């Protein structure tokens, strides 16, 4: 069986949207794929030493709510943290892995994590903000791997 390749671009930095790249990457690696995740813009949050990601219902009418709540109420201070905490608790109760666990499994399976250098500079991040063992590169770096990949996904 020849080795397949999966290239993912991760652009979102919220608790919910951090899942697809890590779930797909870790699963693909378990299936024998060689995987690379290129993290750009808010996707850089996936590479931070401490992933303190939040979820918001604002601008997201599709998010199931435990109780109906007017949008203005959802914008009150503390609501985002409360919803993020509730989401994490729900995930735990349903046996959904934490992001830290999934990221650890990705790293263990040798998924290559690449930080977009341009956005690292743009947001004034320092390499010490990120976990060790990642690479830094630009669009051309992504295409070097993506160009020979069987699947490419933009998340």
């Amino acid at each position, binding site marked *: 069986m020849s080795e397949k390749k999966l290239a993912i671009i991760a652009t979102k930095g919220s608790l919910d949207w951090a899942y697809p790249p890590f779930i797909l990457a870790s699963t693909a690696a378990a299936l*024998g794929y060689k995987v690379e995740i290129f993290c750009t813009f808010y996707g850089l949050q996936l590479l931070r030493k401490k992933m303190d990601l939040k979820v918001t219902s604002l601008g997201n009418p599709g998010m199931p709510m435990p109780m109906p709540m007017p949008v203005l109420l959802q914008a009150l201070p503390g609501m985002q943290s409360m919803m993020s905490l509730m989401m994490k608790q729900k995930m735990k109760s349903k046996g959904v892995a934490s992001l830290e666990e999934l990221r650890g499994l990705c790293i263990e399976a040798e998924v290559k994590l690449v930080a977009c250098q341009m956005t690292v500079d743009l947001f004034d991040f320092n390499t010490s903000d990120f976990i060790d063992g990642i690479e830094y590169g630009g669009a051309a770096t992504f295409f070097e791997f993506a160009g020979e990949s069987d699947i490419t996904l933009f998340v």
Partner: protein
Amino acid sequence: MADFDQELDASGLNCPLPILRAKKALAALSEGQVLHIIATDPGSVKDFEAFAKQTGNELVESREEGGKFHFMMKKH
């Protein structure tokens, strides 16, 4: 129930953890040995079929018993 060499209880775990744990457990087995996986995630039924197809391991048995899903995966 067929014989097995090792058991993995993935009860309560959700996608993709049962697959990832199974992959890890299989890595520790030798060719021809059988891993018995127990899961409660209903999605795991199709997922283990797909896993076997793509990795070349053989799904010898897949059944539901007492609200749990049991899989016998033979390492190839």
